């Protein structure tokens, strides 16, 4: 579904070239849970940004169903993200002036997704908090709203960038379970430095210094 063919991401730091990702070759298969594991600064998040079209590779290519993302315009990549992908970020970013339900609806600016947004919030245990604003929710609840936003519209791929980093272990496990429960509809690509969050992953990639160190089936990874 998503292929990375020798993709590298190079930053310029005071005139010096720094590889955030180095010649990454991998594929994300349909309906799989792909875990990306590595220490801080290993290039996990950069790889996620490349795969999701948030960043364009400096060299190499990222293809989504055969279409090269770098050949798409900025606007086309944005459209792709909105329609086909879902995102959960490390920090539970929500719009402060919107309620939980409205924050979920943000992921679907067109079309009537109100019922789906409500059902998702019900499923995530926020049935009595739909009309609350972010400041009235706990950190775990805010991240669950972010999960609901990512799941809205049944995206083909969900990209989760350390979604459990700001949560305690119990809430973190719950968020991963919720994301994993969507796998019938699409794939889940999750970046983390905590191996215990990838127990349900199909495959685990280990990154070091921006390159893939190893790729293992999940059962062998732990």
């Amino acid at each position, binding site marked *: 579904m998503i292929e990375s063919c020798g993709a590298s991401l190079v930053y310029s730091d005071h005139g010096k070239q720094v590889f955030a990702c180095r010649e990454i070759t991998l594929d994300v298969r349909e309906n799989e849970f792909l875990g990306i594991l590595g220490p801080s600064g290993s290039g996990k998040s950069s790889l996620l940004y490349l795969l999701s079209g948030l960043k364009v590779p400096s060299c190499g290519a990222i293809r989504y169903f055969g279409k090269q993302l770098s050949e798409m315009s900025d606007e086309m990549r*944005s459209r792709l993200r909105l329609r086909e992908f879902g995102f959960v970020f*490390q920090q539970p970013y929500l719009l402060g002036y919107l309620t939980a339900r409205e924050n979920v609806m943000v992921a679907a*600016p067109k079309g009537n997704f109100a019922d789906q947004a409500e059902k998702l919030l019900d499923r995530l245990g926020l049935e009595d908090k739909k009309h609350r604003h972010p400041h009235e929710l706990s950190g775990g609840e805010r991240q669950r709203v972010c999960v609901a936003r990512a799941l809205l519209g049944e995206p083909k791929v969900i990209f989760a960038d350390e979604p459990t980093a700001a949560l305690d272990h119990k809430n973190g496990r719950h968020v991963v379970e919720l994301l994993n429960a969507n796998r019938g509809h699409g794939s889940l690509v999750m970046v983390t430095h905590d191996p215990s969050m990838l127990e349900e992953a199909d495959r685990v990639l280990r990154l070091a210094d921006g390159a893939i160190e190893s790729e293992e089936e999940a059962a062998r990874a732990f």
Partner: protein
Amino acid sequence: MIAVLVLVITIMMGMLINIYQSQRIVEFGLLQAIGYTKRELLQRVMRETLWVLLLGWSIGLLCSYALLHVADALLMYPHAYALNTLDPIALKYTFPVPLSILIVATLTVFLRFRKFDPVGIVERRLV
């Protein structure tokens, strides 16, 4: 004199709107990261600015009309002077300020979006 006044008010209001939009940078970063285009965000800014301007212009117009009416009744009319409270030429002078503010606000946000990196926002590098 009016031109200088328009310029000063426009710069001040444009800067105020720019400060307000700067405070929303996380919102714009998040929306762009999940798939909103820069054009959509710019349209959103323009729409919101237009509403604020329309509201401000309407309130200003009503207040001016009321004030002129009072001035006419208390100062002008008793001294046999005429004051046209619905003067179309005076009304024409109320358009340049909101229009200029809209242009300044849109332009500053447009310039900000040109160098905008949503990844920097979601990674909290720019917050």
